[in-house]
């Protein structure tokens, strides 16, 4: 690969920012680059990163999914409630995944059949799924002490925490889907110009239902990791996390208009956000500033992106 091609590659820029941040933070605090902190960081990033993978696909298709935090809670509550009823934990896990996928499928059906814009449809689901989680549990959090979930939340494999493997597998599979399959090609076409896609015979509605079902499924995967880490399933878990997932995608440089961007950059975007939180924590700076800084980073990231595309 030659230099100009390297420079225009969207991964290069965002990766440089991430590496730069890591270097600066490790100079500022000797604690940053320790194994303990890195393990911590990768656990912190895992939930948002998994959600961001699904969100990236949705945003590339020209849509948005505001419901992922609520769907996560809904799936987690299904898992917790089933385990409390002495259902086999593996079965409960599968049921949780099915529940999340189902919620995403409903999103897709509402968007394509009832022609409700994604923002509104998933805003509705944000309320519905959270409400269902509260109704099912009566607002109570169930402890989940099954070995399966404790393993997912707390064990390591080859020195790396298990949630990290969830993240890596998620991005690997979603990356292959987006760049090697017909489905991925259709996602980019729909995001690029939906009417053209339709006129060229792409089954736009069917693909959109798949896209939102995928986002729901990944919310459920995040719920599995979350349940393992918390060893409980509080129905109020992961509130407003959808905004972090969207922020990760945007910081990663995925175009909000759709049709452009790489899913993998959302992972780096999530990492950058986690490093801000983590870095300010270990530097002892008030967490109030974290929100300010993340807000600034989002705006600057998009601004830089605009600059890049205007001198294209």
């Amino acid at each position: 690969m030659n230099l100009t091609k390297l420079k225009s590659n969207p991964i290069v820029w965002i990766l440089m920012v991430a590496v730069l941040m890591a270097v600066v933070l490790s100079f500022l605090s000797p604690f940053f680059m320790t194994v303990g902190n890195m393990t911590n960081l990768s656990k912190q990033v895992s939930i948002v990163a998994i959600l961001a993978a699904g969100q990236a696909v949705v945003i590339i298709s020209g849509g948005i999914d505001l419901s992922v935090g609520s769907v996560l809670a809904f799936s987690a509550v299904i898992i917790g409630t089933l385990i409390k009823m002495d259902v086999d934990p593996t079965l409960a896990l599968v049921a949780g995944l099915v529940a999340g996928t189902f919620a995403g499928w409903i999103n897709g059906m509402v968007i394509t059949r009832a022609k409700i814009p994604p923002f509104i449809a998933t805003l509705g689901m944000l309320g519905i799924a959270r409400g269902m989680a509260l109704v099912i549990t009566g607002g109570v959090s169930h402890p989940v002490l099954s070995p399966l979930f404790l393993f997912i939340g707390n064990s390591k494999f080859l020195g790396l925490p298990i949630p990290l493997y969830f993240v890596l597998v998620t991005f690997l599979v979603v990356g292959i889907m987006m760049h090697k399959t017909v489905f991925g090609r259709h996602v980019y076409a729909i995001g690029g110009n939906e009417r053209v896609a339709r006129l060229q015979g792409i089954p736009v509605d069917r693909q959109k239902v798949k896209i939102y079902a995928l986002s729901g499924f990944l919310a459920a995967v995040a719920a599995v990791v979350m349940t393992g880490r918390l060893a409980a399933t509080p129905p109020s878990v992961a509130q407003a996390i959808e905004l972090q997932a969207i922020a990760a995608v945007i910081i990663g440089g995925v175009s909000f208009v759709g049709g452009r961007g790489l899913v993998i950059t959302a992972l780096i975007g999530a990492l950058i956000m986690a490093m801000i939180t983590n870095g300010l924590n270990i530097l002892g700076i008030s967490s109030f500033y974290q929100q300010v800084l993340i807000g600034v980073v989002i705006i600057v990231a998009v601004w830089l992106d605009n600059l890049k595309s205007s001198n294209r």
Partner: protein
Amino acid sequence: MAKPDPLVEMRHISRNFGGLQALSNANLEVYPGEVLGLLGHNGAGKSTLIKILAGAETASEGAIFINGHEAHINGPNDARAYGIETIYQELALCGNLDAPANLYMGREISNWGFLNKKAMKEETAKALSRLNIRIKSLDTEVETMSGGQRQAISIGRAVHFNAKILIMDEPTAALGMEESKMVMDLTVELKKQGIGIIWISHDIHEVYNFTDRITILHGGENVVTAPTKDFTEDEIVSMIISGRPVERAANEEA
């Protein structure tokens, strides 16, 4: 001159959008190896008529016959299965994708859902070079290409999938003179191969020199269908505006 059987016949097509009657009882036929000019003022129903043929709209009433058999076209893929390819003026390509992705959009070469990018790229290169279309790189987004290059890709796509009927809705409207000429040269090439072409344009001079027959619509109804050279350019213009056939020509034909 004994005419061959028509490739396409659209019979008694009506279409209303709510209260608006965009087409009423419109007819159209295309023969192999001819360019049919479809004319009419803005809003006459030209695009609606060809969208019905292309599967992008559905008729409220009427029937379509292809090679003499009734065809049921319920979507773009049905139309393509009949060999109908369409070049929409503005809606032809996805700007964020490269030429091969656009050429194969909706009918990607794949195994088990996995794209065969290499095959698509090679086939695209072949298809474009067969038409003498030169494009710097097949990897660039089509958004960065000129209007003529983009139109050439759309035409390349239609030809590559063995169009028998090619619909071109204002294919030269956004193009410069040189690029228009390129598109028309390509079209003449296709005509020689026996493809039936429907050509929509507001450029009367172009239509007069380029088409074999014309069909004029006015307010969604047929005004006249005749060989182009039965009329003068001025007569055609006046029929488009007035919506009434010119008397003299009708007498001559009888």
